[in-house]
């Protein structure tokens, strides 16, 4: 849900429009300030946490549905949620180190 609301515009602005110089982003100083705000970092943490687990959950069920391997349910669940947990912890560590 969060990713549905926020991601398309973030990708459009940050990864497409700005490098193509279609729009002018904040100056680097402002951007750095923004990135270092604890609240912004916390928000991004919440966001990546949800995104990774959203992916893990959907991907897990897509594997079940398409490949018909629900007898491997446990390893697949461990794998997908494990990756999501690792990525989230990694994200937390990275965001903690900023600023």
């Amino acid at each position: 849900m969060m990713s549905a609301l926020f991601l398309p515009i973030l990708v459009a602005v940050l990864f497409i429009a700005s490098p193509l110089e279609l729009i002018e982003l904040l100056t680097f100083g402002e951007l750095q300030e923004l990135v270092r705000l604890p609240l912004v970092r916390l928000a991004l943490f919440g966001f990546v946490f949800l995104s990774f687990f959203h992916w893990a959950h959907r991907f897990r069920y897509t594997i079940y549905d398409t490949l018909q391997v629900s007898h491997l349910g446990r390893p697949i669940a461990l794998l997908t949620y494990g990756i999501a947990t690792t990525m989230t912890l990694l994200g937390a560590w990275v965001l903690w180190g900023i600023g």
Partner: protein
Amino acid sequence: MEVLRYRPEEEAEPTWESFEVPVHPEWMVLDGLNHIKDQLDGTLSYRWACRMGVCGSCGMMVNGRPVLTCATYLESLLPGPLRIEPLSGFPVIRDLVGDITDFMGKLSSVKPWIVRDTEKPVEDGEYLQTPEELAEYKQYSMCINCMLCYAACPVYQIEPEFIGPAAIALAQRYNMDSRDEGAQERMDVLAQHEGIWGCTLVGECSEVCPKKVDPAGAIQRYKVSASVDFFKSVLMPWGER
């Protein structure tokens, strides 16, 4: 019309058989099948009863989609040939007849009747209900158990343990009934992996439903209310369940 035949005493696997069927503007697919049975081959087996979209027994796959054959015009599917198969997801007993025991078991497991903690004595009269309370669940009460939603549901085809769209919609029909007190009992069956959480929301069940019951919606609403209940019970364990 191409019909999938399966005669277990003769063949190990189903085979296609073609029949020439006349088209009349008022004919449904079921009329075509009846024409085959009356005029061409009396051994063709299939289920039907009411011819008016109420009994829910004539559901079949027509050109790969589950439909009520009594409510699908032959003309709407021209040019032919039509391909008629038994409903997906059910073991085939013969020709177009599938075994529905699995569904019947699942249906009764969600207690699709009004559950009361204590019954009122008959002398006290009926359980009254306002039109608003009726409107809460009326949509779900339209289900005719035709099982088209099961045939459209890939999750059910792949994981037959899944309790399936109609059973959940009918559970909701009683859960949302102001006279019913059985929601908790049904929750034990539904709030499992094989219950609502098996659903990955393909949404085709609601697309094929001939009665606009919207089982997919029923399942998603149940997911929301089950999650809310879960968080309530975690955050407020002292509250009554």
